[in-house]
């Protein structure tokens, strides 16, 4: 709409006609207080905090429902307005327990801040406060009724934002309470929450009424340091702010949220991102290297000993049987730098192309389909802004919660048109403009169906001027190619492909594949890699199943596994590895680690710096948040392993090139504060990072230099934003291998092997399973 000019507190402001006054003011730096107003949700006008004086209007008006028009004059702060707000707060405090000293929200409470600002410290009320007991609604959500100020943020967030509608308001007036949807008894409020357990209600609560099972009464907000990093669970890669605190053996995570609304996900997080960080504190965590002794048992050892045993054996196998007798399996949850380094280590130190990972989507086929077509890969952000989306296969609500959130938001706020083609029924159909159900094997023929069928669905999709095509793991190999080919016939089209884990895309992009180097460069035509990778073989190596076949035949001398659990995932026969020396770097003693000869305790994604790439190709920076004594990042483990093998570490990690070679230990601080101070110092002295062989950012330089599609916008990346990669720059000769994709189909409360070590996620899964049974009985 056209811009209008209006006056606020004597300042001339301009905004599109119809903008809410509160938004226009906030944009201009004029803070108008509000409890119930929440950007993106429907208007409630319940709290009366945002009242302002409008010229020629008799009563104070709520800024959250007033739309701006030409020539209006407003006053947002005056004695009259302060008095009105003070009176509102006095009413809100009428039954509020004022238990701020023990309240979770104390120190970061909007009611506390407003009371402070407007000075409603005295009350004229003499009535006794109404007290009601606190309720536990689910393992994740607690509700302290007297603290609630009935702003309705939670009910709207749950309903409109999440499309779950599990919260309501019951009773009337002073007896009103927020009520969950389950466990209702006649005459009583409900007391159980049957929902997706995302915790968004807790997040938006302006006071301490809704508190989380994992954080409540554990700390004071000001005792935490906050580190912004990336969630380690699904492939959407939400930015997550971890609240960390010092403990005896490092630094622990006590909370995860994204209240600063920065990054790709705004304030959104699902149950896994919000509550599934507790695996880092699992008592089952490996904190000491283990080496198999002569009796055949794994026993604790020093890092030096474990690395020496592993390095000696790797060297021996390489010398005696050649690199072809060594296998390397990478991870979907380690950083790009670690994945890159792993394959470089495999290819240049172990002299083998036998490198693979658990493939959950056919990214190689996707990259090869988009090769030579720059500008066609979609960021996750586009799902929130594209005018028309074709979602084929997949189940975003369960497996890609942020994508589902973006699609719902886009439909709700921008009236985007969502077209769904799926062989099953998915929850997002509730937001869809049109739905086409397919048979289980109907996916490959979808393009032809859309072109030829003349059905209402096809016509609607074809009539769209631009289309964002998001497709699931139902598509592999040639099917990906033909779907992309179908889409590329259109002038304006972008694609996204859905995989499973935090860095599955990064694992494929970084060349954890036997036939492809980083950036899907074929090993047979290594291009720029040829000059830098000494001893690179031009023959494709063994895939993961082939490695285990070779092991079963006694042909695999050594196997290095970094952050993966192939024994459980592939159902490997336990005796298959009897004649193979197995080295495992992992966080836990997984089924694979239990078979290993050397186990090296690794840091989780929350304990290291690096970058990860989500399934849409958006790269984000992870920062070290937690710390655990005894573990090392996989990056450091690999460098130490290479060094123990007498490899030239400087060839592996190009550190300390231009300036000083001093190791200033910048990535080792338990807190971001330490790292930040260090980076300030570096910048002040015109020095660069990457002065240590353990600094992953040195490898990021090499990735940017060598990997097609990874020319990253560093200003944004280091500013904490997501930056896009460009698969269009992948060499056209890129070839996809055999179809080894096995989708993990992790839902809202599962996260592969990692999820098994999260008590919070296990509790939620059990609780929701019981709720489903209960509902079915009813």
């Amino acid at each position, binding site marked *: 709409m056209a811009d209008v000019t209006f006056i606020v507190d004597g300042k001339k402001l301009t905004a599109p006609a119809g903008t809410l006054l509160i938004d226009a003011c906030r944009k201009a730096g004029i803070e108008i207080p509000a409890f119930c107003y929440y950007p993106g949700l429907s208007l409630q006008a319940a709290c009366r905090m945002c009242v302002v004086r409008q010229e020629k209007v008799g009563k104070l008006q709520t800024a959250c429902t007033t739309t701006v028009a030409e020539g209006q004059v407003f006053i947002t702060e005056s004695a009259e307005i302060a008095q009105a707000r003070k009176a509102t707060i006095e009413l809100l405090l009428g039954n509020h327990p004022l238990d701020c000293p023990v309240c979770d929200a104390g120190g970061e409470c909007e009611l506390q801040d407003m009371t402070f600002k407007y000075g409603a410290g005295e009350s004229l009320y003499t009535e006794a406060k109404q007290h009601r007991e606190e309720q536990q609604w689910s393992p994740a959500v607690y509700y302290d009724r007297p603290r609630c100020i009935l702003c309705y943020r939670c009910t709207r967030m749950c309903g409109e934002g999440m499309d779950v509608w599990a919260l*309501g308001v019951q*009773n009337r007036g002073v007896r009103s309470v927020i*009520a969950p949807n389950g466990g*209702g008894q*006649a005459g009583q*409020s*409900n007391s159980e929450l049957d929902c997706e357990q995302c915790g968004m209600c807790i997040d938006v609560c302006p006071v301490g009424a809704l508190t989380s099972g994992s954080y409540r009464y554990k700390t004071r907000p000001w005792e935490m340091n906050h580190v912004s990093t990336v969630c380690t669970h699904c492939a959407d890669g939400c930015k997550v702010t971890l609240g960390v605190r010092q403990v005896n053996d490092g630094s622990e995570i006590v909370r995860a949220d994204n209240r600063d609304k920065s990054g790709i996900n705004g304030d959104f997080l699902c149950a896994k991102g919000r509550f599934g960080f507790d695996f880092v504190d699992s008592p089952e965590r490996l904190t000491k290297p283990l080496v198999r002794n002569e009796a055949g048992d794994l026993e604790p050892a020093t890092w030096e000993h474990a690395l020496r045993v592993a390095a000696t054996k790797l060297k021996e196998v390489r010398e005696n049987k050649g690199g072809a007798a060594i296998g390397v399996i990478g991870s979907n949850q380690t950083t790009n730098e670690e994945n890159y380094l792993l394959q470089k280590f495999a290819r240049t130190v172990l002299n083998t192309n036998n490198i693979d990972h658990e493939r959950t989507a056919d990214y190689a086929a996707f990259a090869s389909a988009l090769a030579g077509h720059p500008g066609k890969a979609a960021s996750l952000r586009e799902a929130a802004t594209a005018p028309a989306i074709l979602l084929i296969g997949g189940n975003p609500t369960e497996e890609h919660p942020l994508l589902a959130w973006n699609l719902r938001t886009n439909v709700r706020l921008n009236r985007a048109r969502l077209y769904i083609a799926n062989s099953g029924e998915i929850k997002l159909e509730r937001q869809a403009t049109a739905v086409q159900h397919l048979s289980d094997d109907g996916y490959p023929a979808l393009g032809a169906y859309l072109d030829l069928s003349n059905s209402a669905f096809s016509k609607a999709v074809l009539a769209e001027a631009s289309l964002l095509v998001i497709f699931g793991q139902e598509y592999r190999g040639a099917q990906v190619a033909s779907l992309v080919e179908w889409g590329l016939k259109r002038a304006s089209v972008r694609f996204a492909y859905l995989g499973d884990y935090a860095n599955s895309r990064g694992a494929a992009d970084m060349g954890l594949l036997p036939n492809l180097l980083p950036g899907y460069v074929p090993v047979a035509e290594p291009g720029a890699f040829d000059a830098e990778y000494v001893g690179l073989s031009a023959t494709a190596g063994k895939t993961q199943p082939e490695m285990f076949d070779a092991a079963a035949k006694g042909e695999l001398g050594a196997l290095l596994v970094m952050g993966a659990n192939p024994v459980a995932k592939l159902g490997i026969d336990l005796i298959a590895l009897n004649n193979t020396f197995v080295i495992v770097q992992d966080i836990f003693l997984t089924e694979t680690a239990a078979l290993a000869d050397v186990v090296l305790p690794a840091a989780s994604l929350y304990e290291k710096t690096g970058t990860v790439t989500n399934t849409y190709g958006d790269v984000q920076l992870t920062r070290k948040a937690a710390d655990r004594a005894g573990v090392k990042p996989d990056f450091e483990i690999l460098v130490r392993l290479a060094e123990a093998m007498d490899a030239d570490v400087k060839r592996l990690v190009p550190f300390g090139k231009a300036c000083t070679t001093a190791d200033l230990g910048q990535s080792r601080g338990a807190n971001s504060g330490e790292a930040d101070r260090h980076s300030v110092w570096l910048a002040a002295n015109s020095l660069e990072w990457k002065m240590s062989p353990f600094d992953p950012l040195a490898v990021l330089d090499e990735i940017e230099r060598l990997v097609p599609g990874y020319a990253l916008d560093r200003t944004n990346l280091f500013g904490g934003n997501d930056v896009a990669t460009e698969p269009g720059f992948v060499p056209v000769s890129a070839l996809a291998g055999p179809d080894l994709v096995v989708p993990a189909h992790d839902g809202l409360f599962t996260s592969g092997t990692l999820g098994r070590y999260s008590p919070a996620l296990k509790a939620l899964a059990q609780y929701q399973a019981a709720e489903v049974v209960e509902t079915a009985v*009813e």
Partner: protein
Amino acid sequence: MTLFSPRLAARLDALVEKYPLRRSALVPMLLYAQDEIGYISDAVVAEVAQRIGITELDVRNVATYYSMLRFKPAGKYNVQVCTNISCMLRGGYEIYERFKEELGIGHKGVTPDGLFSLEEVECIGVCCWAPAIQVNYDFHDELKPDLVPGIIDGYRGKAVAEAPHA
């Protein structure tokens, strides 16, 4: 399967189709259901939600707002005594006290035989003939405390007359 009599079920069927939005029928449906069942039971909530196509939580959100909808059974005869200003000025509280005494129950109480329940209520719209009470849908106005036992006896008799013969 329905909880309701065929007549009420048919009435509810018509009600949900009557408004542009199905959920507009919610409050009258709850009221009629309460008249027949006696109170808003969990089963009533479930059936009303299912008839309209909304969640049970939606039904509870609305139902709990209204003080005239109840979630526990009342007596066969629900005595509502007005104590708002007109009735109060003309002795509403004395009427209320007398009912408490005669029935041996207080506000929202139910007699052990389940015959009577008592409520102190806001204005029932009979100010010009205050003080007044409402028993189910019957009004009794211009009352004096001494008239209370007669009213109670009247309903006792009615209950006996209506009871199935043993």
